């Protein structure tokens, strides 16, 4: 039901929290899932990134994994985050695909927010 990778990420989310900086969210409590990402960029690369999530274990784990995979990459990587790859790594069941698309939305919103502010902390 829940893979070892989900359990790991659920139990020890290293990147939970909220940063001042660019942020993007998607979902709502009423629909059962809300995810928010926030990040800071230094020298054109994501230097710090956090998430908050109200949602199922798969959602929490996927958020954690997304942050881990994006850190150190250029912010544009947020637009290319691959839900399918996450689903595979975490062994997320198909009926949960909607949650991954929510995360994709939130990441894109975060990128958009960064695009409008372009706040690079090295500058």
């Amino acid at each position: 039901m829940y893979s070892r990778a989900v359990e790991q990420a659920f139990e020890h989310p290293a990147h939970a929290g909220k940063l001042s900086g660019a942020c993007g969210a998607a979902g709502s409590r009423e629909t059962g899932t809300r995810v928010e990402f926030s990040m800071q960029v230094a020298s054109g690369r994501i230097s710090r990134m956090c998430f908050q999530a109200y949602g199922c274990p798969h959602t929490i784990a996927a958020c954690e994994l997304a942050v881990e995979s994006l850190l150190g990459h250029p912010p544009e990587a947020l637009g290319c985050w691959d839900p399918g790859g996450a689903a595979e790594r975490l062994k997320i069941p198909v009926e949960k695909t909607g949650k991954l698309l929510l995360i994709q939305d939130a990441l894109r919103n975060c990128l958009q927010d960064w695009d409008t502010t372009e706040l690079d902390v090295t500058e």
Partner: protein
Amino acid sequence: MIYLDYAATTPVDERVAEVMSRCLVSPELFANSASSHAPGRRVNQAIESAREQVAGMINAAARELIWTSGATESDNLAIIGAARFRSNRGRHLVTSVTEHKAVLDSCHALEKEGFDVSFLHPDEFGVLAPEDVSAAITEATTVVSIMHVNNETGVIQDIRAIGEICRSRDVLFHVDAAQSFGRLPIDVRADHIDMLSLSAHKTYGPKGAGALFLDARRIGRVAPLLHGGGHERGLRPGTLPTHQVLGMSKALEIAQRNLAGEPPRIAALRDHLWQRISTIPAVQLNGHEARRSCHILNVSVAGVEGESLLYGMRDFALSSGSACISDAAEPSYVLKSLGRSDQLAQGSVRFSLGRFTTRAEVDQAADAFAATVARLRDLSPYGLPDGMD
């Protein structure tokens, strides 16, 4: 793994398992109880004395008890069987929205046959007003079905008051006692119960064993759902499963004998659990504070997603709704009927305690619950909710 899901099912008591295991290998008890030879008659006697014993526990006579495959079948046979058999007197039934699916779906099946069913709403604490039952009864009403103890909240209905109303209006009263037997006293005479469903596996007996009481003075017959062979006075055919019957009667006997001691002990544990959990902010009890069976504590937690809450508690066997429908991830209809939002209904946990629950287990559950709630609220963009949403 700590088991706190006694309302879903209970482990079989060792003494029950022993009776059953002995029966399974006994050269004296394997014959078919319908056979007229000596081994058959011996088995029949064992089954009949179990029948007498179980009937006696609810103040009924042996011939008023029918063995079934569980409370689900008993509910179906009582409701559908009685409604169909009396359909020329009327085609209206009364029940409540917080009944078990076995009752609700039996009623829905009758609706498809042209029966009318009034589904009454309990109040925000899950308690049904007897006056509402009275008001719902019409000239056409033949059966009222109200459960004794709710399987999700543990709320106890005032079956005696409802029974009195039904008796005075000459309507048959069916009670699903799957959760209450062994936890509350039941007296079909004093409570004016005409039909009563029992299940063995909720009280440390085998799964797949149940019984239906039918008041002999009030009910000549019900329309059987299964046909063939004439067993059980023509109301329930099929070779009687001796080991199941003996196991059930042993389990019920133990439960009945412990009625004075066990429920208070379990209630004390449950109260201790609630006392500890109620210190967590924005946690709410589902069901009535006082009118509640000893074994169930159902709480809703604001601001915490249900699946993650249960997953955080995965070292504990717990339920987020009725076990019987937990495959479907829909929010519990029972909790929704108490006025809980989808989110709160989802973010709810049923702790159910039993014979083998210890204080240490309850403390571990309270610790884990507090920690999980705190952690998930930390993770959540909503944080700690101001109030209950």
